[in-house]
């Protein structure tokens, strides 16, 4: 081949010279006439002439600009386009992006003649990747070409499919490609199989149904097609070998025929029959026969024959031999074959050809576990290989040695590895080998000195590329120690000594990780070395701190070590100097450490306590509830401080309070209050995010507090103004809250954990201080040590974190439990309680306050309840109704009438002596509709009530028997409709309904097919004197099945992108809702949508169709219109919701 060089060199000027410079890029003539080759030629020539990367960049950019102009010009012919594509390919290959040409490449593939099409396809496959959006434009072309009668076009299409094809479009071409499996031309069949292989790789499910076609391909009369199908089988068998054991016989037969020379000589390569096919088959057999004596049995013969036949001295026969050997060692062993394979390995290892030697070593490495003696046979060769000039051979030999390391040879082997490491510059090799050395040293270390020395070498050679596990494991080993305390002591002492001497060397540069290890060990175990003054160590560390190459992370480690040492020495000049020096450091971290050290030094006793000697492995007991601060908290509460509320609660509260603030002064009219909030929204579009920002800050407690106070002030003010005749109530209501609601709560509910966590949590008022303390604590553990390296200490910190988290959740859980229990406790009271006349007003205000369904508020309210006996009855009532409404606020004001137990209704019910359809208790608490009379006959009355639970629509049918005798066998049957589905069974039977009594049944209803409104009909039949049948029907609306869906803005964003069904529509806003927030409030209240976030003039909302089909809304206002954009996985849902939106927006 050396003559090729000469030819190239001699041809270069001549070839380039053939191109007239006049036809170069600047050629003034018709640019369309200039051939691409000459332009490409001149481009390449100019690039060759360039000397710097920068010049090349400039030139290519020029070229790209001119190409861009050419490809986008409408006059450009396809022919010229093809030439441009070739140049673009060249530019892309050099790493310059030419995305402007992608679309033209697709066009070219679509429109060009064969030659141009081919270039187009090629460009597409080089430019685009599987997920590129433009690729979809190619699908049509591919489909067309697959159907072409021109074989070349079919081939091109198949080639591009096997290179890049969008996964989601596979169904479009799959049938066409399947057809091609029956094509008369073998090349088409073969490429079709390859394309299917590609599909199998990217979307195995989509080709599941054609597995039998793969089998057909395996039996194809053409060996090429069969060979192609082996790719698929190799892949499938790799994933699941047991499923294809039945094919073993076929593979063996095929291999036998191939080895036996039954194939036509076309398949020979250097007179070896189809070597690549043989390799493939051997791999498949290896996978099939692994650990399976029966299957392996089938292949012994053919393997034997393969070994025998592969005797010609050529590379490719060695390839087959190597595969044979691997297969023989993989499958269930047969001694005779193993012997032959071992001989083969010998041939490889001893071969003078380096490639074969390499493979021989690889094979030895592979079989060494099964047959260590084989390594012994070749030990001399292996030793020779250790000094081989080729580093790859050396590395492979070390890999082999690594496998045979034991306690006796570890010193030598590790030495060899370290020698190699010192010469190697390759990152991959270093990472790999360093890990092995560390592992071996840990496993087989003969003595302490050696271990420490070796680890020192590992850290200094490995530098900062070593895997972080290595220093971690090493330090853990040191800290945890072994069983033998004396050994531990010696090991640690030796480590300290060796590090001291290493640090003593002048101008030695150590990797950061090594320095971190050193400083941790020195800090932890310096006192083991008695003959060195701690002052000396401190001086050394101090000088390290001043080195510029030391990173600030490492400095943190060093500071931790200094702190630890300082805690065990009386006063030290170095420490003082250090504190002084770094207290003004520009690195805030270091400065922080310096200050901590300073303060600790002032209290030596605390410092000693904080930093006990050799306690890095001791578990720390962390009082996550911070119970020792209980007294402090109680004191604070006693002084009138607000109780602690968790972050999320505060945030929610803040949100609701913001509304409350806006609503209250204008509480008389709902609409006006809405618009007022709208004004705020408009004035500060970022108001919301600002709010969440501040509450995200950990030091905002004070800020929060004032907020709460302010709100309460407002409330009181209004109370005094006499806006509602509840001045006193308000006062009373606030009392239990602010005084010690905690203790009250504990007393009442008998639920101490609530108290504890409540108080514990309230401590986080001093969040900052706590954090500081914690960090100091952990710094004390050796910053360090603790936080990032030591496993034990690490878990301690984690434990701490986890604990506090659990506490938090417990807290909230308990709180919510409490809430519900409170609610249910008071539920029955509701019926008997006289209803406050101001109910409606009150409810408006509560409703708006609780628009976000903030549970914390309710909890708070419930807390206030906890003194029912002591409170005035009226207060209780007031609060009760409040509570009641807040629960149903979800549905309040919607177009569904809510059943409000109004005094008049109660009177009515009182007057009517019997058969008043009152709901069963468990339903009373749910938001529900009015009880609707469906049917009234002499004997029977039928009522229906809808109740909206969080996860379903509950239809309650009440049947009252008006007669004086019992009714037997009353059957309720709902008819099946396509829209609705009654869960469980659509029928219900009451065996008997007593005279003058009421029975009810409940059915959960789901919406199966989306419609805005549908009718669910049914009938009741009963036996009296004769069979009587009453028919009824209920109208169910889509809104019965829509529930708010709470989510965060991020979740919304994620979900939004994953949804595909889009509906966009502009809805006219009426004048009363001219702001976004007003409009959104309307949607929230009437349609039960959840407002996720409002940013500027855009708002996002979410809801779900039960059981769980989400629908996301994005709203934007512009010039009196509300642009709503729906997205949902279900296509019909957005349409239905849009209709509802239009309806409610039109109404208000």
């Amino acid at each position, binding site marked *: 081949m050396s003559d090729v060089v000469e030819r190239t060199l001699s041809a270069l000027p001549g070839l380039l010279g053939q191109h007239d410079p006049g036809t170069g890029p600047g050629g003034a003539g018709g640019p369309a006439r200039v051939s691409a080759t000459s332009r490409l030629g001149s481009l390449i020539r100019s690039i060759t002439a360039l000397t710097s990367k920068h010049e090349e960049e400039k030139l290519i950019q020029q070229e790209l600009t001119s190409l861009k102009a050419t490809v986008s010009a409408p006059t450009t012919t396809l022919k010229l386009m093809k030439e441009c594509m070739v140049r673009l390919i060249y530019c892309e290959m050099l790493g310059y992006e030419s995305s402007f040409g992608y679309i033209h490449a697709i066009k070219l593939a679509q429109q060009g003649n064969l030659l141009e099409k081919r270039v187009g396809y090629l460009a597409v496959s080089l430019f685009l990747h599987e997920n590129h959006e433009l690729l979809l434009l190619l699908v049509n072309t591919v489909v067309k070409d697959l159907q072409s009668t021109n074989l070349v076009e079919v081939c091109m299409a198949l080639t591009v499919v096997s290179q890049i094809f969008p996964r989601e479009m596979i169904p479009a071409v799959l049938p066409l490609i399947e057809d091609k499996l029956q094509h008369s031309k073998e090349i088409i069949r073969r490429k079709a199989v390859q394309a299917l292989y590609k599909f199998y790789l990217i979307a195995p499910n989509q080709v599941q149904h054609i597995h039998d076609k793969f089998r057909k391909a395996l039996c194809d009369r053409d060996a090429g097609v069969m060979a192609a199908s082996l790719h698929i089988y190799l892949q499938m068998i790799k994933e699941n070998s047991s499923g294809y054991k039945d094919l073993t016989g076929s593979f063996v037969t095929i291999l036998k025929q191939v080895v036996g020379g039954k194939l036509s000589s076309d398949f020979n390569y250097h007179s070896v029959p189809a070597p690549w096919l043989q390799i493939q088959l051997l791999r498949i057999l290896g996978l099939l026969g692994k650990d399976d004596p029966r299957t392996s049995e089938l292949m012994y013969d053919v393997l034997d024959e393969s070994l025998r036949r592969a005797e010609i001295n050529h590379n490719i026969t060695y390839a087959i031999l190597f595969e044979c050997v691997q297969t023989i060692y993989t499958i269930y062993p047969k001694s005779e074959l193993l012997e032959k394979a071992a001989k083969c390995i010998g041939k490889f290892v001893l071969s003078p050809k380096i490639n074969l030697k390499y493979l021989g070593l690889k094979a030895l490495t592979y079989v060494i576990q099964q047959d260590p003696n084989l390594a012994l046979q070749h030990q001399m060769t292996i030793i020779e290989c250790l000094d081989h000039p*080729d580093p790859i051979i050396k590395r492979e030999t070390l890999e082999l040695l690594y496998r045979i390391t034991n306690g006796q040879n570890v010193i030598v082997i590790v030495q060899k590895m370290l020698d190699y490491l010192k010469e190697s510059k390759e990152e991959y090799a270093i990472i790999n080998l360093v890990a092995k050395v560390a592992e071996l040293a840990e496993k087989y270390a003969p003595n302490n000195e050696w271990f420490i020395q070796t680890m020192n070498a590992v850290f200094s050679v490995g530098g900062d590329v070593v895997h972080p596990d290595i220093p971690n494991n090493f330090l853990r080993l040191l800290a945890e120690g072994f069983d033998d305390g004396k050994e531990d002591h010696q090991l640690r002492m030796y480590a300290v000594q060796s590090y001291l001497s290493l640090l003593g060397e002048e101008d030695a540069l150590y990797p950061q990780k090594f320095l971190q290890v050193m400083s941790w060990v020195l800090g932890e175990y310096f006192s083991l070395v008695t003959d060195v003054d701690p002052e000396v160590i401190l001086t050394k560390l101090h000088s390290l701190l001043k080195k510029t190459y030391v990173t600030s992370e490492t400095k943190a480690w060093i500071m931790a070590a200094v702190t630890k040492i300082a805690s065990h020495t009386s006063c030290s000049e170095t420490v003082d100097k250090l504190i002084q020096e770094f207290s003004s450091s520009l690195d805030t971290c270091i400065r922080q450490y310096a200050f901590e050290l300073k303060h600790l030094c002032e209290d030596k006793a605390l410092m000693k306590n904080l930093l006990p000697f050799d306690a890095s492995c001791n578990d720390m007991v962390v009082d996550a509830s911070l119970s020792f601060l209980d007294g402090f908290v109680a004191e604070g509460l006693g002084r009138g401080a607000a109780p602690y509320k968790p972050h999320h609660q505060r945030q929610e509260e803040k949100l609701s309070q913001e509304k409350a603030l806006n609503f209250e002064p204008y509480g008389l009219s709902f609409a006006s209050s809405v618009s007022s909030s709208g004004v705020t929204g408009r004035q500060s579009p970022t108001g919301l995010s600002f709010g969440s920002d501040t509450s995200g800050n950990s030091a905002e407690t004070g800020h929060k507090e004032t907020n709460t106070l302010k709100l309460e002030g407002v409330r009181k003010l209004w109370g005094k103004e006499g806006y509602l005749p509840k001045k006193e109530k308000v006062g009373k209501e606030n009392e239990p809250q602010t005084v010690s609601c905690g203790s009250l709560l504990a007393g009442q509910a008998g639920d101490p954990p609530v108290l504890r966590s409540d108080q514990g949590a309230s401590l986080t008022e001093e969040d900052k201080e706590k954090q500081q303390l914690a960090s100091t604590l952990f710094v004390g553990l050796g910053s360090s040590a603790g936080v990032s390296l030591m496993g034990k200490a690490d878990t301690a910190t984690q434990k701490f974190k986890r604990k506090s988290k659990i506490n938090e959740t417990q807290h909230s859980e308990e709180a919510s439990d409490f809430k519900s229990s409170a609610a249910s406790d008071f539920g029955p009271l509701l019926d008997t309680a006289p209803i406050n006349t101001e109910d409606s007003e009150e409810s408006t205000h509560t409703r708006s306050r609780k628009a976000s369904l903030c549970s914390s508020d309710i909890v708070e309210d419930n807390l206030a309840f906890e003194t029912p006996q002591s409170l005035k009855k009226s207060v209780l009532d007031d609060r009760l109704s409040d509570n009641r409404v807040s629960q149903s606020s979800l549905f309040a004001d919607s177009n569904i009438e809510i059943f409000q137990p109004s005094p008049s209704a109660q009177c009515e019910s009182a007057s009517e002596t019997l058969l008043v359809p009152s709901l069963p208790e468990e339903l009373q608490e749910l938001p529900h509709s009015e009880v609707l009379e469906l049917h009234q006959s002499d004997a029977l009355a039928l009522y229906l009530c809808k109740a909206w639970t969080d996860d379903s629509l509950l239809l309650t049918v009440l049947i009252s028997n008006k007669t004086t005798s019992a009714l037997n066998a009353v059957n309720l049957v709902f008819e099946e409709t396509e829209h609705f589905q009654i869960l469980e069974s659509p029928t219900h039977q009451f065996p008997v309904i007593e005279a003058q009594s009421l029975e009810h049944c409940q059915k959960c209803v789901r919406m199966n097919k989306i419609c805005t409104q549908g009718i669910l009909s049914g009938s009741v039949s009963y036996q009296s004197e004769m069979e009587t049948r009453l028919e009824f029907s209920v109208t169910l609306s889509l809104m019965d099945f829509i529930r708010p869906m709470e989510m965060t803005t991020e979740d919304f964003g994620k979900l939004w992108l994953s949804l595909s069904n889009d509906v966009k529509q502009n809805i006219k806003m009426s004048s009363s809702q001219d702001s976004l927030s007003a409009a959104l409030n309307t949607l929230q209240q009437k349609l039960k949508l959840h407002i996720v976030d409002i940013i500027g003039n855009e708002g996002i909302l979410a809801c779900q169709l039960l059981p769980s089909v989400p629908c996301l809304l994005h709203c934007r206002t512009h010039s009196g219109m509300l642009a709503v954009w729906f997205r949902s996985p279900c296509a019909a849902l957005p349409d239905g919701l849009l209709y509802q939106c239009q309806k409610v927006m039109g109404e208000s």
Partner: protein
Amino acid sequence: MIKAILIFNNHGKPRLSKFYQRYSEDTQQQIIRETFHLVSKRDENVCNFLEGGLLIGGSDNKLIYRHYATLYFVFCVDSSESELGILDLIQVFVETLDKCFENVCELDLIFHVDKVHNILAEMVMGGMVLETNMNEIVTQIDAQNKLEKSEAGLAGAPARAVSAVKNMNLPEIPRNINIGDISIKVPNLPTFK
């Protein structure tokens, strides 16, 4: 599977790069540079296999390369490929190029990147070896070339275009189709439409 096929010259200038696995543009360039860096350091008489190349796939990655005159041919493969098999595949590839271009040299690869890609596509499809028989590959390429020629001739549309073809300064065209002296059985040709 074959993850990438790279051809670059002694100076690391890429002459052909084909990736069968998705890498970003930048990574592709880095892979080319890294591979060149790894391969170019090697002596002539060492083995043709290399492990490493952190970018392309870490430990399950092998580089198998051959060095011909001014060019390095590098195949980046994973562990499911046979080293020696790939090594001979490179040989087949180069021999095929040699046949198609008649004494192939670096310039052929530069000026006919598209044709080299087409030849490669007949050998390796979607990262899997499709065809290893040199004659078969040459036959396919030849048949396609002829067909394209004839189509161009028949479509032979405006005289202007034809004259443009004639006027084109393309020294390689006659060379390219002139593989006639090699006796190739052309079984597929007659049936092509």
